[in-house]
């Protein structure tokens, strides 16, 4: 809401400097987002009186004006046709900053000699002052403007841009804000006088109002002014409308807008003669009904929309926009003014449904007081008579089926202290609430019975009053204490802990955490070829873009996209994300599963002056998964698996008994290509945190070995088809075998084709004694035999 200070002053005296006033409003809940000053740059411009006008000796169209500024007299050259002796004008002295009407730029006024006459200063037009585009003559000030006074004092203004929260539609009006200012500064509000002469015929026989749906229209008031002359509204009204961001149209329409800005009550003016039977019917639209609104659009109406009809058909969308057929035109002579209260729900649905949000609907949809329509109607009728002439009918129509009494609210001293943590003296509470227009009656020692003023629709509970007291006395006045209440019992959060541990583990393993958008597009999902089509994903009904239409089913797409985006300026990348995937569940919220996913690509070692070669590959990913699982105390095996995302033969599923924990593999080159990743190989892995969680175990201490180990190396030749894991499992399962490490895999001469050599280093150890050389040799021989018989291994 734009609030011109000059308009505000009409209802309340401003006793504070502007920055302080803005601060008080902000602190009280009406945030002043900006203050636009008009005339702040009018230095060296004062009110001058034109004493005499004489012809210019050398130019017919120019004149010489003698202007008195109180302290001095100046003779200046002036070309304005409207210049006349006796006028009070805006006189700019040397050094003033004025707008050059030709260029629109501000320039500093210097002395000039015009056709042989020296001119030191000038009388300004509105355009030169930056007030408007008007430049056909000079600006003539009011005859009582004090001569010599700075122009800013006379014409200067400040426009406050106030962010009004949706609970305060009363503050979408100058008067409403004046009431706040009055309460905050201890001043009184001057309400406009609402009287006007009622010289026309009685309203009763001239028009009628029928409300079919009282729930949607609790009150409908109307007045009639006959014999108006439609034309432009006066400059002062146009200026105020413009300052508030509204375009002046005609005196009749401007008055309805002006009163809306003044009181917060939207009004509508009908051309009385276009209303068939002079009968207003407030009803729901009928199926298939259509209406051409003021903006020229033909709109389809539905039965949940409230409309204003006359004897035959719709004439306006109630509270949202008028209809073209009953619009006030230059020929209009008789005006029927509407000032009504409509259900905010209905207005909101209609305006949102038609995407038609107007100044009126923005006020109605917040819920306006039912007491307001006749007040605003009288004000508008009065202004209509003043500015457009005509005669007002006697009385108004006031259909009020939705009358409601305001109930008092009991505000106890106990509640105030319970909520605020400090007791407020009853007199102070009383004074504060009364300053806001509440009526207050004492109830017992410490309590008050409080009734909200008609303009406040946001007060229903004692706590609403608590806020009123707190915000007007200031939140600063409330003390600051620390929580003393009992601490709740600690609820373990194993899922959260697991997530944070994995984050630390991954970062510890050298991976950079990323966070990608959970909303993804069809293209990304299909590129990731993650085996689950978009048909399996949860879809947003109103996506902002096709790239953010679905909730992701895997983290893969985001990871690969991040890999690709960084490939231009990064050699090696190790990325991971911990985040949710969203699996649809019929009739319920989707299942949100926490996942860990990572991607590796590029050289294993960062660029360095001493080269250490090799690209990140499957075993880097496997290694860090093994490390992570080991840290979590989870045992899992890597089983070959196939899915289109991975290269066949290079993907493994992490399996713990029957539970699948995740997957790791080399991304299929076709997939990497679709993401435009220049690096090969790209390795990806995924862990399902929900599957991992029940398996994770706290570490369990194992006694340190007390007797020395004997180490032996063992090189075996086995068939290519024998997985290393089988050999390892067999060795590990053998008695007295402690540590085992596979330290070499070799193919080629002299190992025959189709075979590979695996070299292990193993340590034999007993928990209760030092093994003798003979014992070790015996066990080793038996192990070799078992390897030969079970796996066809041969010693190398």
């Amino acid at each position, binding site marked *: 809401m734009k609030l011109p200070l000059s308009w505000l002053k009409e209802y309340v005296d401003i006793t504070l400097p502007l920055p302080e006033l803005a601060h008080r409003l902000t602190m009280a809940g009406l945030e002043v987002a900006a203050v636009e000053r008009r005339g702040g740059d009018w230095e060296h411009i004062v009110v001058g009186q034109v004493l005499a006008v004489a012809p210019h000796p050398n130019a017919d169209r120019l004149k010489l004006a003698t202007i008195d500024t109180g302290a001095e007299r100046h003779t200046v050259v002036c070309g304005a046709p409207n210049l006349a002796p006796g006028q009070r004008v805006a006189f700019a002295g040397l050094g003033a900053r004025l707008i050059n009407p030709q260029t629109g730029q501000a320039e500093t006024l210097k002395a000039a000699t015009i056709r042989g006459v020296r001119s030191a200063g000038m009388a300004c037009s509105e355009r030169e002052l930056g007030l408007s585009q008007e430049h056909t003559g000079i600006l003539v000030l009011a005859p009582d403007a004090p001569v010599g006074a700075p122009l800013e004092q006379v014409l200067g203004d400040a426009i406050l841009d106030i962010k009004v929260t949706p609970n305060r539609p009363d503050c979408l009006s100058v008067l409403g804000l004046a009431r706040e200012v009055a309460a905050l500064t201890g001043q009184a509000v001057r309400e406009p006088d609402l009287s006007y002469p009622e010289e026309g015929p009685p309203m009763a026989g001239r028009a009628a109002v029928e409300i079919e749906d009282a729930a949607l229209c609790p009150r409908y008031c109307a007045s009639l002014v006959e014999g108006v002359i439609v034309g432009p509204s006066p400059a002062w009204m146009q200026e105020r409308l413009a300052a508030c961001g509204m375009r002046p149209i005609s005196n009749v329409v401007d008055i309805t807008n002006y009163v809306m800005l003044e009181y917060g009550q939207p009004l509508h003016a009908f051309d009385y003669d276009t209303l068939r039977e002079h009968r207003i019917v407030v009803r729901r639209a009928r199926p298939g009904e259509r209406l051409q609104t003021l903006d020229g659009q033909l709109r389809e109406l539905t039965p949940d929309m409230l409309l204003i009809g006359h004897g035959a058909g719709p004439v306006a969308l109630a509270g949202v926009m008028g209809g073209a057929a009953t619009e006030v035109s230059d020929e209009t002579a008789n005006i029927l003014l509407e000032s009504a209260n409509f259900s905010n729900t209905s207005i909101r649905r209609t305006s949102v449904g038609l995407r038609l949000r107007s100044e009126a609907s923005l006020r109605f949809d917040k819920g306006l007081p039912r007491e307001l329509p006749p007040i605003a109607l009288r004000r508008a009728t009065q202004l209509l008579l003043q500015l457009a002439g005509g005669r007002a009918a006697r009385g108004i129509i006031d259909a009020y089926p939705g009358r409601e009494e305001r109930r008092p609210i009991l505000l106890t001293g106990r509640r105030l202290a319970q909520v605020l943590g400090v007791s407020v003296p009853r007199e102070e509470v009383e004074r504060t609430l009364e300053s806001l227009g509440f009526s207050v009656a004492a109830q017992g020692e410490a309590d008050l019975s409080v009734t909200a003023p008609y303009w406040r629709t946001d007060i229903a509970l004692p706590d609403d009053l608590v*806020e009123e007291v707190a915000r007007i006395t200031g939140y600063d006045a409330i003390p600051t204490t620390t929580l003393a209440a009992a601490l709740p019992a600690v609820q373990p959060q194993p899922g959260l802990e697991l997530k944070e541990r994995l984050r630390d583990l991954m970062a510890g393993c050298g991976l950079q955490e990323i966070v990608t958008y959970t909303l993804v597009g069809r293209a990304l999902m299909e590129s990731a070829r993650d085996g689950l089509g978009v048909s399996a994903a949860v879809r947003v009904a109103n996506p902002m873009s096709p790239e953010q239409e679905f909730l992701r089913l895997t983290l893969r797409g985001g990871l690969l996209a991040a890999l690709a985006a960084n490939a231009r300026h990064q050699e090696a990348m190790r990325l991971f994300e911990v985040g949710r995937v969203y699996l649809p569940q019929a009739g319920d919220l989707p299942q949100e599963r926490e996942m860990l996913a990572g991607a590796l690509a590029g050289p294993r070692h960062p660029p360095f002056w001493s080269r250490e070669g090799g690209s990140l590959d499957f075993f880097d990913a496997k290694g860090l998964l093994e490390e992570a699982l080991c840290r979590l105390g989870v045992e899992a095996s890597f089983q070959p698996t196939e899915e289109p995302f991975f290269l066949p033969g290079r993907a493994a599923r992490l399996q713990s008994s029957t539970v699948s924990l995740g997957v790791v593999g080399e991304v299929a080159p076709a997939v990497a290509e679709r993401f435009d990743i220049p690096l090969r190989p790209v390795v990806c892995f995924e862990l399902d945190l929900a599957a991992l969680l029940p398996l994770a175990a706290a570490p369990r201490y194992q006694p340190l070995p007390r007797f020395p180990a004997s180490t032996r190396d063992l090189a075996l030749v086995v068939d290519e088809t024998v997985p290393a894991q089988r050999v390892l499992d067999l060795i590990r399962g053998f008695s007295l075998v402690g540590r085992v490490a596979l330290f070499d895999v070799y193919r080629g001469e002299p190992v025959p084709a189709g075979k590979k050599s695996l070299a292990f280093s193993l340590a034999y150890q007993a928990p209760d004694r030092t093994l003798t050389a003979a014992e070790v040799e015996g066990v080793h021989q038996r192990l070799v035999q078992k390897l030969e018989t079970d796996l066809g291994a041969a010693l190398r």
Partner: protein
Amino acid sequence: MLAELDSLKATALAELGRLQDAKALEDWRIRYLGRKGTVTQALRGLSALPLEERRALGVAANALKALLEEGYAQRLQALRKAELSARLRREALDLTLPGRPPALGRLHPTTQMLRQICGVFASMGFQVVEGPEVEWDYYNFEALNIPADHPARDMWDTLWIDGADPQGQRARLLRTHTSPMQIRVMEQTRPPVRVVVPGKVYRYEATDATHESMFHQVEGLAVDEGITFADLKGTLYEFAKALFGVERKVRFRCDYFPFVEPGVEMAIDCFACAGKGCRLCSGTGWIEIMGAGMVHPEVLRRVSYDPERYTGFAFGLGLERIAMLKWGIDDIRLFYANDLRFLRQF
């Protein structure tokens, strides 16, 4: 004989003084002290002499041997020292070469900030809990005192989930704030309640340097008997000091959120301009940090808490905004663009 020993001593010591490396020293040792060395031979030759002579010469010869051995040892040590220092000189590192980078990763800045913020509240007894990102309209709006068609719904532009409920209403949405967890937590527990809820939230919002359609919030909720507005002020003040420094000033002003009453907005004094007004604070000297307020009695009633008995406060802050302020980041879109040149700065 004695004279011979004297000359032998002079020659050996002179030679020893000229030796420059270990090889020459070893040759010298063999020449004089080795099994066939001159001194050894001389000592051995003594046995042929008569006892008187043998005794006198024996003392002298043994003294010579001891002297040469001592000289050898000293020389050996000196040569080794010289050699070692020469080798160290040869093998000195170019200490200006860059160090080998350790393979350590980093956490995303939002994770780091989340941990900081939750850590501060944890120290005040708030437990961290999480909730769903896809929510029912009921939890995101209705139970928070924002029924359908409430004008305050304009405060949260909502992304709805496809598919209507039997009444034709779009009942599921991407949560627009973390506040639905206020309801879920209170539905599941009885007072006292003291939780913080970090998580992603979503808005139907065009993105620019200060707006994102996905961002993180941290919600807080404390409900019990005797919790007051003064406690709200104190708790949030402690938080602001912990995160932004003890010298920070805070400001609490009235604001409106349908699920609190009274409503609060907390700001800290601008650390860029010390309150004088600059671009960071839009000239106001204050930077908005979070919304807060006393839990609305209707919200308590909704979860069957007796609002006459229990009171509480709630707050919600935007994580990225805090991170941007703290780390001087000027564009919120950097958080999810995942440019490693950005992420590696934290």
